[in-house]
C-alpha cells in the first residue's frame, strides 16, 4: 500500500530524514516511536504534503501513485488522512459544513455522487456517538473552544467520517487523559478493516496498550534504527531510547 524508499528530507536547510525506508501493507498497524527530534512529525508532514519540507532524495509510492507529486487535497482524495498533533481552530465554519465539504470533495475525486443531506447527517450522528462527542458538535465551529481532549477526539471523528485507506496519527495521545485516550484508541480500533492501514506516531508506549500494532519501528536521527513486534514498545518503555543509539 505505502512504500517509502530511502527518503531524505530537509527543513530550512537542516537534514531531518536521512534515508528512511518503510513498507506498509493493507490490514497493518505500524507504530513509529523515537526520541524528540528524531523526525517523526516530519515523516507525517511529508507523507501528507505540508509545505516547507524539501525532499532531497528518495521516493514514496502509495497504491501505485507517486505520492510526492500530489497536492495535499489529491492525497486526501487517494485516501490518506492525517490526525493533527495540533488541530487548527477555524472560527465561523461549522463542523457540519466542513465535513460535508470534505466528504463530498473526496467523493467527487473518486467519481462518486455527493451524499444526500439525510445520509450525511445520519453518519455524522453515528460517528459522533462512536467518539462519545456531544451532538451539538455538529453546529459548532471547527475546533473552536474545544478542549484538548475534544480536539483529538474530533480528529478521530473526522477519520471515521472520511474512512481513509491510510491513517497517520501524529502524537494523537499527547495531552490526553486516560479516559480520552481510551475513547480515541477505541475509535481507531473499531475503524480497523482488512483493507486499510494506520501509522501511529507516538513518543510513549501508553497508546499502544490500546491500539495494538503489528510492527514497531524506532526512528532515531532521521532513519529507522530498529523494527520489531509489539513487544519492542515495552522494551523501549523500560530501557529508553539510548541503548539503540550505540
Amino acid at each position, binding site marked *: 500500500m505505502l512504500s517509502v524508499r530511502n527518503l531524505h528530507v530537509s527543513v530550512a536547510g537542516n537534514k531531518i530524514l536521512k534515508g528512511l525506508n518503510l513498507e506498509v501493507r493493507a490490514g497493518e498497524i505500524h507504530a513509529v516511536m523515537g526520541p524528540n527530534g528524531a523526525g517523526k512529525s516530519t515523516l507525517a508532514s511529508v507523507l501528507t504534503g505540508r509545505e516547507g519540507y524539501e525532499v532531497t532524495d528518495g521516493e514514496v509510492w502509495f497504491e501505485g501513485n507517486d505520492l510526492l507529486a500530489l497536492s495535499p487535497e489529491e492525497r486526501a482524495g487517494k485516501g490518506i488522512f492525517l490526525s493533527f498533533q495540533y488541530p*487548527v481552530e477555524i472560527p465561523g*465554519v461549522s463542523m457540519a459544513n466542513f465535513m460535508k465539504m*470534505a466528504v463530498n470533495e*473526496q467523493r467527487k475525486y473518486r467519481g462518486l455522487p455527493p451524499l444526500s443531506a439525510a445520509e450525511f447527517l445520519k453518519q455524522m450522528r453515528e460517528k459522533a456517538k462512536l467518539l462519545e462527542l456531544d451532538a451539538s458538535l455538529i453546529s459548532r465551529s471547527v475546533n473552536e473552544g474545544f478542549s484538548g481532549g475534544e480536539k483529538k477526539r474530533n480528529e478521530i471523528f*473526522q477519520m471515521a467520517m472520511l474512512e481513509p485507506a491510510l491513517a497517520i496519527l501524529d502524537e494523537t495521545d499527547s495531552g490526553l487523559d486516560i479516559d480520552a485516550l481510551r475513547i480515541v484508541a477505541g475509535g481507531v480500533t473499531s475503524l480497523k478493516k482488512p483493507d486499510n492501514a494506520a501509522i501511529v506516531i507516538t513518543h510513549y508506549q501508553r497508546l499502544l496498550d490500546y491500539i495494538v500494532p503489528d510492527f514497531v519501528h524506532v526512528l532515531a536521527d532521521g532513519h529507522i534504527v530498529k523494527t520489531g513486534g509489539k513487544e519492542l514498545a515495552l522494551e523501549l518503555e523500560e530501557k529508553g531510547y539510548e541503548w539503540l543509539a550505540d
Partner: protein
Amino acid sequence: MNGLPIDALLPPAHPLKAGGNEPPYTRNDGIRLGMADNGFMLCTPEKTKAAQPVRIIRTSDHNACNNIITMEAESCADVLLVYPRLSGKISGNNDLTEIHLKENAVLNLIFLQDTESIPRLQTKTVVRQASGSRMTVHYATLSGEYVRNELHVNLDGSHAEHQAYGLAFTEGSEYAGYEVQITHTSPECRSNQLFKQILSGTSTGSFSGKVTVNRNAQKTAAYQRSSNILLDLKAKMTILPHLEIYADDVKCSHGATVGQLNNEALFYLRSRGIGKIEAKKILLLSFLEETIKNIKYQYIKDKITQKLIQKMEKNH
C-alpha cells in the same frame, strides 16, 4: 413616514461639541455642504417603527449629498444605503450624513459600497445619540478605486450604545480606509468597533480608530479591534488605534493585527480533501464573518458574500 419635525430641518447643533474634543466639522465639510447638490432627509416620529427597511440608492450623478436622519424618541428603523456600480461622469463623491438619535431610538444603518466605476467616494457620518439609544452601523466596502468612510459618534446620554462594523476587500490598486471616532460624554454607555480588511495586489488600506472617554463618562465599556490580512507582498495596511481615557472606572480595550492567511489552517482544510482555492475562500470568508453576522437581513449578507467570493476567485 408621516410628518416632519421642524427641528430636523435645522442644522445640527454641533453634535460633537459637548465632548470638547475634535471640532465636529472641518473645512472639507464646508466644501461638502457647499457642493451638496442632493441628499435625503429621513425623520421617524416618536414611537414609530419602520416596518420595512428603508433602502436608499445613491446614484453617481451628484457630487455631494447632504443627508439628515432624525429619529424621535423610541422610534426604530433600518436603513440601507446602497452605492451601486454606475457609470457616472463625476470624478468624486463626497457625502455628509448627520444622524440624531433621540431617547431610546434604535437605528440599524448599512453602507453597501460596490462602486467600482466611481474613482473616489468619501463619506462622513456624524452621529449624536441621546440616552438609551442604540445604533448599529455596518460598512461593506466591496469595490471602488478610492473609498474612505469616516464615522464620528458622540454618546451624549447615559446607556446609549453604538456598534460599528466594517469590512473591505481591495484588489489591484484600490484603496479603502476607515476613520472612526467615538466619544463617550455620558456615563454607562457602550461602544464597539470591529473592522476587518483583506488586501491583495498593490492595494492599500487604513484604519484610524479613536475612543475618547470624558471625565464624567464613568462605567464606560468601549472596545476597538482592527484585524487585517495581506494576500500579497505589495499590499499595505496602516492602522492607528487611539484611546484617550479621562474617567477612572471604565472598561476599554483595543487591538490591531496585520497578518497573512494562516498556512496551517489552509493545510488543515486541504488535508481533508478541500482544494486550495476553495480552502482559501473558506478561510477568508470565515475571517470576515464576524463583521457581518449581526446584519439581520440574509439577502444583504448573501449579496456581500457573493461579491466577496467573486473577488476571491479573481485574486487567489
